[in-house]
């Protein structure tokens, strides 16, 4: 069991407030990612969880037991957590085996057991046979695996990972994502993962906690965060987004039904509106570029239709990225390569109303 409760957590450095009152409930065996731009407080939160820093206010409880509060902090060595550092933090004066075995040598463990468990941990990350090497003699990917094996060997209930993949090249990063996810399922360890890469967060997580300027923005499953972002910051941070400012003209009679937003004197969009929206309220309508269709002929009537002119296009291989000038805004459109459109061509953009999401 390893369930984490964070309540009212605050931490500042000098004049700078890194974490400004964070509440978060993480379930047992859950893979949770703290996501945000640099300086959002995600790494500080992880260090507070590890016991490497003391909170200014608030508390952290593991399975109902308070481990960090203003009154005291259980030191990291007594928390039975594992941690993977961004720099890997492998000890250069020890071999791979010694690095992995270090945590076991600190406890009353027999030599044989240390050897068995260290070898099992190395096997788990696919590094059999490299035990005698020094960290400096390993590739970046291998170093990353040693760091992982070292944090797993003591069989922690919670594993903290601080941007563990950011120093790897793109290909290796994708492979390690799959392996990490798989590892978490097999071991049933609660993972708390820090990254600034939204694609990584979506690929790995059960739930994502999006943070900005020391505050939690939204805590939900990846799909919900992508499709129904709680605010403009999240919409913009989680991938590309067209953001149109508008004013509510019609409020739905039934909750969850579509309303109407005027984004331009000549243009009205049907859109999903946040609960409790009132008429004449100004808000933003988010449309993801890949949700927009582009055609030469006018499409069917039940979609939101925006006529426009192609301004530029770039061929990205799997996609074509167009910028289209419409009455209200320059819109970004991503479609699979099929029909190609020329610059200055008159086109129609259309979006399903459910894909137009109103944001406060």
């Amino acid at each position, binding site marked *: 069991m390893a369930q984490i409760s964070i309540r009212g957590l605050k931490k500042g450095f000098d004049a700078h407030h*890194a974490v400004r009152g964070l509440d978060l409930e993480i379930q047992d065996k859950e893979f949770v990612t703290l996501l945000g731009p640099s300086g959002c407080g995600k*790494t500080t939160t992880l260090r507070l969880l590890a016991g490497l820093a003391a909170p200014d206010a608030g508390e952290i409880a593991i399975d109902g037991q308070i481990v960090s509060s203003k009154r005291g902090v259980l030191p990291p*060595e007594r928390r039975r957590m594992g941690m993977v550092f*961004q*720099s890997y*933090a492998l000890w250069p004066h020890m071999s791979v085996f010694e690095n992995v075995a270090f945590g076991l040598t600190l406890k009353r463990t027999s030599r044989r057991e240390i050897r068995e468990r260290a070898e099992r941990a190395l096997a788990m990350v696919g590094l059999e046979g490299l035990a005698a090497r020094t960290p400096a003699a390993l590739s970046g990917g291998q170093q990353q695996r040693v760091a992982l094996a070292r944090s797993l060997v003591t069989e922690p209930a919670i594993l*903290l990972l601080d941007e563990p993949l*950011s120093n790897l090249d793109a290909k290796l990063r994708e492979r390690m994502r799959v392996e990490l996810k798989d590892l978490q399922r097999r071991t049933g360890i609660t993972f708390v993962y820090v990254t600034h890469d939204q694609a990584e967060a979506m690929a790995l997580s059960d739930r994502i906690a999006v943070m900005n300027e020391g505050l939690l923005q939204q805590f939900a499953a990846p799909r919900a965060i992508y499709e129904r972002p709680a605010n403009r910051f999240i919409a913009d941070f989680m991938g590309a987004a067209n953001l149109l400012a508008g004013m509510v003209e019609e409020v739905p009679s039934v909750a969850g039904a579509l309303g109407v937003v005027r984004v331009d004197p000549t243009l009205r969009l049907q859109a999903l509106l946040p609960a409790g929206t009132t008429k004449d309220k100004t808000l933003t309508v988010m449309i993801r570029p890949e949700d927009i269709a582009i055609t030469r002929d006018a499409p069917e009537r039940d979609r939101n239709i925006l006529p426009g002119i192609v301004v530029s296009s770039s061929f990205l291989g799997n996609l074509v990225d167009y910028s289209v000038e419409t009455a209200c805004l320059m819109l970004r459109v991503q479609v699979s390569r099929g029909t190609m459109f020329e610059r200055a061509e008159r086109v129609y953009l259309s979006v399903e109303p459910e894909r137009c999401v109103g944001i406060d």
Partner: protein
Amino acid sequence: MRAAAHAGAGGVPTGAGEASTAAGDAIRAVTLGLAVVAFLLFIGYPLCWLVFGAVGLPGDFSPHFLVRALTRPENVAALVNTALLAIGVGLLGIVIGVPVAWATARTDVPLRNVFHALVGLAYILPPYLTSVAYIILLGPNAGYLNRLIASTGIHGSSINIFSAAGVTFVIAMHVYAIPYFLTYGALKSVDPSLEESARMLGAGRWTMLRRITLPLVAPAITGGALLAAINSMALFGPQAFLGLPAQIVYLPTRIYGALSGYPPRYADASALSIVLVLVTVIGLSVQRRYLGHRSFVTVGGRGVRSARHALGALRWPLALVLLVVVALSSIAPLAVLVAAAFSKVWTEPLTLDNVTLANFVAALADNQIAARGVFNSFRLAIAAATLAMLIGLAIAYLDLRTRLRGRRLLDYLAILPLGLPGTVLAVALLQAFIRFPVPIYGTIWILLIAYVARSMPIAVRGANGALRQVDVSLEEAARVAGASWLTTVRRILLPIARSNLMLAWLLVFIPALGELSATILLYTNGTETISVAIFRLSDLGQLEVVAALSTVLIVVILVATLVTQWLAARGRGGTSAVPNM
């Protein structure tokens, strides 16, 4: 990758031990606290007494002594002599150091690496040994060179090393290495494209040197000369060995005089010390400002090599000039000391009849003062280096790994002894520990304290550098893996920093082994060091035994220096604290 790791940690101040248990806190607090107490006791407490002493405490409070230090004719003479010495040494430092630096750094003069090493040797030799060597070379009547001059029959042209000029010259032969090394470093790091663009605009080689190169390295030259001048004021050895016989008194020897009479005049010594410290500190702050402008010199990144000037026919004449410089500053003094060490009578040439090992037997066994000196110097230097490094480590740890209030102040206090000549430190320690409840005054412990205090700047800087090499995440990883603070320090931090810590240890050990200026005021019967033995035996005219002692000291210093260089080279090439990808 290391850069990335640092960038990742950016904005998140680290504190490896910010969180801990009550027990862990206690161990940490005791360990670090002890070091801080020792540090304050060894530096802060004596400095207070220096100031108290200068105003007449614990007797009557009076500005009388400070006024007298600045007005009494003998004191004014000492101050003037000291100032003239500093000016002379500074100028000589530029005249000798800069051309030699240019020659070895930027020309194809033959044997340039050998010359470079020999300048270093001149700096490593304790300057009082150079003084002894020059007494053998240029003593009136008996000196080798003076007899050589006399044999040519030119009368009245003998050189007397016991003179203000002699003191200035011998000190310059030691400290010219400072402007040399600073200028050398600056010349090496001038971006060659700055010079090449001047050539492209039509400047000749000499115009370029005068209008581009020299102005670029000017801050290093000025800063180096100032540092040499400041250094010269504190060098008690040559001032005493060569100045006192001619009754030429400098501030350090004047202070020594105030304390060697009976009763010792502590208040006068303290007041004079304050004057010396003020002059030193003013000099150092001016020097810092000059070196602060070093940013002109762009440090070339990827092996930017500045071109060497082809000297053509001038190669060998220039080499000859350099040979004269290094001969006067290191080769001749060394040769003379070694030759005298193996001679029955130092004034006779080293022929088979004259060879003996008796001087070494005397130095290491028979002569009580000398033998005690060797033993004491070794145990003091080893203990001082170890203790200084422990304190230095604690201060560096507080500075780099905790967020304790006042940690920066400690770090700053640790460089204070740079502005304290050994003589001044001794005056402070004497007064501080003469009334101390624990008997330290008159024992070997006061020497240990003096050596530790003098080496604090090197020890703290060295420990600081060593700890900076260890990424804090390495320690944090150990804590998360279950290691306590003490285990983390013992099994992670110290082993990784070991090579750099040993280097710093040696850098403290070497000067401690030959320390004279503080020792001479603090030793008593039974706690003589090598330097004291050399000082007292040369007073008695036993120059052969002095030479043997010097040779022993030089050999140990050379071996320690070579080990240091080897360690430094290994440290640069090998272990990096964060594994590279």
